[in-house]
C-alpha cells in the first residue's frame, strides 16, 4: 500500500510526472487518506486538484467531485484523459439521458466522477451512488456553500444531506478564496468534525498594479503601449463581449506580428474550443476574454493578466489573476481603471437578484418554463431555492415573500459592499498585496519579485522580451501537411 513517504512521491511521479509535492499538497492528501474530513485552502494555481486526484487513484472505489461550473468539469475530464487517466467522467445537466445512463451504469468502473450539485440530488443519481463504494466526496470551490461567499450556490447547501445519504464518506472541501467567516460557514453547514488545513492565499509570484485613466481611448492606448513593450502570453479580461471583440480586433490591427483573438460565452462551442487550444499551445499571444474563459484555464506560462473592466468582487479578481504564473515564475497583474467603471458591476447585480414584483409573483406562476424565460437563471435559482426553504419550514407564502425580500436586500448590500471594497482597493495608496489578501489572512510571504505599484513597481518601466516562437502558420499547405504527419 501507499502509506509510506516515498511511495506517495512515487505515485505522484507515476501518475502526474511531478517529482515533488508543492506546499500543502502532501499534508492534505495524508489527512484525507487517514480518513479525516478536511477543509483546505491553498492559493489559486497551487495544485488543489492533485490533492484529491492522487488519493482517488490510489484508493478503492469512486471519488465524487462536486464542481459548480459545467465547463470547468468538462475541461477537467478532458485534461485528465489527455494525461492518460481515462477512468474519469462527468455528470451534468447538459448531458442527455442516454449519456447520463452510460456513466451511471458503469459507475463502479470510474475512479473520479465530476458532478454538478443539482445532479447529485436527483433520485436516480443518488440511488446509483448509494450502490457504489464512495471513496471520497470532494467539494471543489467550497466557498459556494456560504451565503457570504462571492458565489453562493443554494444547491451546495444540499451537499450535507447527500453526504449523509452516502454514509458519510471522507469529505474534502477546497477553496482558494475563503475568508475566515466563509471557512466557519462551510464547517457549520457541513456540520462535521473537520480537520482544517489553512494556507495563506497570497501569490508570491504576482506583482500588482493599477493604472488610472480618464477615458476609454486612453485605456486602449495604455494597453497598446504595454503590449508593445511586453512580449509574453497575455490575458485581457473584459466585462462586455462587445468591447472584448472590439479591442481584440484593434490590437490585432496594431500588432500584426502577434496573434490576438477573443473568447466569450456568445461564441459557437467549436470556435471556443479552437481558440482555447490555440492559447494553450502558444499559437496565440494575446487572448481577450470575459469571465467565461477564466475558471478552467490552466496554462502554465501566462505572464500578464490585464483587467480592462473591474470585476465585481475581490474574490473574483483573485480567481482571475490566479490564471497567471501557474508555473511559479514571476508574472504581473494590471488593472485599468477609468472613473465610473464601477457602474457596470452595479448594473449587473441588479440583473442577478429579483425585484419586489418578481418575488411577489413567483409563487403564483404555474408554468415553470414560462418563469425560466422571464427571469435570469440566477434569479430563478435564487427564488426556487428560497420558496422551497421557507415553505419547508412551515411559513405561509406571504411570510415567505417578506422574508425573501429582506434576504434579497441583505444580499444586495453584500454585493454592493464588495464592489465598494474592490474600488477602494483600486484607489488605495497603501500596499495592494496586503490590502488584497487582508480579508483572508494576517501574514504574507514576501514577494518573489516586485510587490506592487505602491511599493516598488513601475509598470511603465516594465519590459518583457521573450524569444519569439515560430508561428508555423507561415508555411504553405504542403509543408503544413508534412509537419502534421511527421514527414519532414
Amino acid at each position: 500500500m501507499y502509506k509510506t513517504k516515498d511511495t506517495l512521491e512515487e505515485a505522484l511521479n507515476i501518475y502526474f510526472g511531478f517529482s515533488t509535492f508543492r506546499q500543502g499538497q502532501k499534508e492534505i492528501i495524508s489527512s484525507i487518506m487517514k480518513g479525516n474530513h478536511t477543509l483546505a485552502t491553498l492559493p489559486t494555481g497551487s495544485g488543489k486538484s492533485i490533492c484529491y486526484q492522487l488519493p482517488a487513484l490510489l484508493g478503492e472505489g469512486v471519488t465524487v467531485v462536486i464542481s459548480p461550473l459545467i465547463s470547468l468539469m468538462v475541461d477537467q475530464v478532458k485534461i485528465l484523459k489527455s494525461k492518460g487517466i481515462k477512468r474519469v467522467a462527468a455528470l451534468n445537466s447538459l448531458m442527455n439521458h442516454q449519456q447520463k445512463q452510460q456513466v451511471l451504469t458503469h459507475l463502479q468502473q470510474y475512479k473520479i466522477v465530476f458532478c454538478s450539485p443539482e445532479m447529485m440530488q436527483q433520485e436516480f443519481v443518488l440511488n446509483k451512488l448509494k450502490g457504489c463504494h464512495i471513496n471520497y466526496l470532494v467539494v471543489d470551490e467550497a466557498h459556494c456553500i456560504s451565503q457570504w461567499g462571492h458565489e453562493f450556490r443554494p444547491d451546495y447547501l444540499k451537499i450535507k444531506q447527500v453526504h449523509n445519504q452516502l454514509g458519510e464518506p471522507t469529505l474534502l472541501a477546497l477553496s482558494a478564496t475563503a475568508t475566515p467567516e466563509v471557512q466557519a460557514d462551510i464547517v457549520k453547514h457541513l456540520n462535521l468534525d473537520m480537520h482544517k488545513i489553512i494556507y495563506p492565499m497570497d501569490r508570491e509570484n504576482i506583482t500588482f498594479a493599477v493604472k488610472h485613466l480618464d477615458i476609454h481611448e486612453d485605456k486602449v492606448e495604455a494597453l497598446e503601449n504595454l503590449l508593445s513593450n511586453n512580449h509574453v502570453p497575455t490575458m485581457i479580461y473584459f466585462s462586455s463581449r462587445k468591447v472584448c471583440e472590439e479591442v481584440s480586433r484593434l490590437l490585432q490591427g496594431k500588432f500584426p506580428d502577434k496573434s490576438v483573438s477573443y473568447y466569450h460565452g456568445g461564441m459557437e462551442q467549436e470556435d471556443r474550443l479552437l481558440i482555447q487550444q490555440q492559447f494553450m499551445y502558444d499559437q496565440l499571444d494575446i487572448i481577450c476574454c470575459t469571465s467565461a474563459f477564466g475558471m478552467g484555464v490552466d496554462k502554465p506560462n501566462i505572464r500578464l493578466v490585464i483587467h480592462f473592466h473591474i470585476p465585481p468582487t475581490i474574490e473574483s479578481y483573485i480567481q482571475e489573476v490566479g490564471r497567471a504564473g501557474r508555473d511559479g515564475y514571476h508574472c504581473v497583474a494590471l488593472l485599468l481603471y477609468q472613473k465610473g467603471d464601477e457602474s457596470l458591476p452595479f448594473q449587473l447585480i441588479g440583473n442577478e437578484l429579483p425585484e419586489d414584483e418578481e418575488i411577489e409573483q413567483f409563487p403564483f406562476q404555474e408554468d415553470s418554463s414560462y418563469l425560466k424565460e422571464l427571469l435570469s437563471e440566477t434569479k430563478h435559482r435564487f427564488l426556487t431555492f428560497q420558496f422551497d426553504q421557507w415553505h419547508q419550514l412551515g411559513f405561509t407564502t406571504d411570510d415567505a415573500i417578506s422574508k425573501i425580500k429582506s434576504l434579497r436586500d441583505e444580499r444586495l448590500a453584500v454585493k454592493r459592499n464588495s464592489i465598494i471594497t474592490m474600488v477602494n482597493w483600486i484607489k488605495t495608496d497603501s500596499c495592494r498585496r496586503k490590502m488584497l489578501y487582508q480579508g483572508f489572512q494576517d501574514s504574507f510571504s514576501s514577494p518573489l519579485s516586485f510587490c506592487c505599484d505602491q511599493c516598488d513597481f513601475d509598470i511603465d518601466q516594465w519590459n518583457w522580451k521573450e524569444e519569439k516562437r515560430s508561428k508555423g502558420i507561415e508555411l504553405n499547405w504542403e509543408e503544413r501537411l508534412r509537419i502534421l504527419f511527421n514527414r519532414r
Partner: protein
Amino acid sequence: MNFDLFILYLLSHVENERTPNSIFYMLRGKKSSQAIQDAYLFKLSPYFGIYPSLHKATYENVIRELENKKLIVIDSSQFNLTKSGRELLNQKHWFSSLFWNGQEYHQMDQSFHQKLLLLCQTASHLSYRQSNFIPIIEGFIIQQEVRKHIQQIRNSEEDFKPILKEVYQLFSQLTTEEAELYSLTLTGVGQVGLSSEQLAERFDQSVHVIRLKVKSIIHQFLQELINHPNSYPWLSQLVDDNENDKLMKSTKVTLNYIKKGMNIEQIVHSRGLKRSTIEDHVIEIATKDRTFSIRDYVSLELEEMINQAIDQVKSKRLKKIKSQLPESVSYFQIRLVLAKPNNIIEDKEIEDLNV
C-alpha cells in the same frame, strides 16, 4: 459585399415567385417539403442547406443592404431585381466557379468534416507517438467512429503514411487558395486549426464567404471520395453511406403506408396527423424519388391541364396558377405537378419499368 452578391444571385432565381426569406430557409436547409421542393423547382438544389448556421439577423441585414443599394425592390411579399442588380450579376464572381451539392450532401457534410478533422488530429499525434491529446471534436459518436477507424488503420498499415497520401491527393484537387484555407483548419502536432473568424481575417474576406468556401471544399472532397472510392481506401470510409436516407423520418413512415396501398385519408386517420402534413410528405417523396408515380393523386388529363396553366401564367406562384384552373383543383395537386417537371413522358417510362 461579396456575400451580399451571392445572396443577390440566389434571389434572382426566385424573383416574383417567392419572398426573399425563402432563400434564407433554403440556405439553412429548412426541413420542410416546401423548401425542398422550391430548391428543386428553382434550380437551387446545389445551395440547399449549405449555410445551416446563418443567422436571421445577418440575412435580414443583407436584404436591407441590397434594398438600400437599389439592387432589389421589395413591395409587400413580392420582390424584383433592379436593372443595376441584374447587371451586377452579369460579371464573373467569386462563387461562379465554386462547387456545392447541398441537396446531396447537406445532411452528411458536417459529420464528414468533423470526422476528417479528428482523424487528421489523431493521425498527427500518433505519427509523433503521442497517444494523449485533447480531441478537437467533442461529439461522442464522432469520437467513437474515428477511434474505430484508427484502430483498423493501425491493424493493417505500418504507419499513417497512406493517410497522408490520401489527404494529399484530396488536397491536390483543390485550387491553391482552397488548399491553404483548408489546411489551416486542421489541428495536430504543432498547429491548432483556425476558427472561421480567424480565417476571415487572414484572407481578408468576410466570415460568411469563408464559411461557404470551406463548405465548397468539403463538398468537393465528398464528391471525389464518392466517385473514386478505390483511390481513397481509408478516407472514403468516412463518408456516410445513407443514400436511401434522403427522406425525412416521418416521410418514410408515410411512404411505407403508401406502399401498402393506403390513400391519404387513411394515412391521416391512422397516423393521427394533419392532412396538410401528409400531403407535404407525398410532395417530398415526389420531389426526391423519380420513380414515384403521382397518378393516384393527379389524373393524366388534370396534369396536362395544370401544366398548361403553368405555361400560361409563366410563373410558379401557386395562387396565380390556381386562378386559371377550376375550383375543384387543389393546391396539393398543383404542387405535385410542379414537383415533377416534364413528367408526362417520364411517367410512362417509369410505369413500364415498374411492372
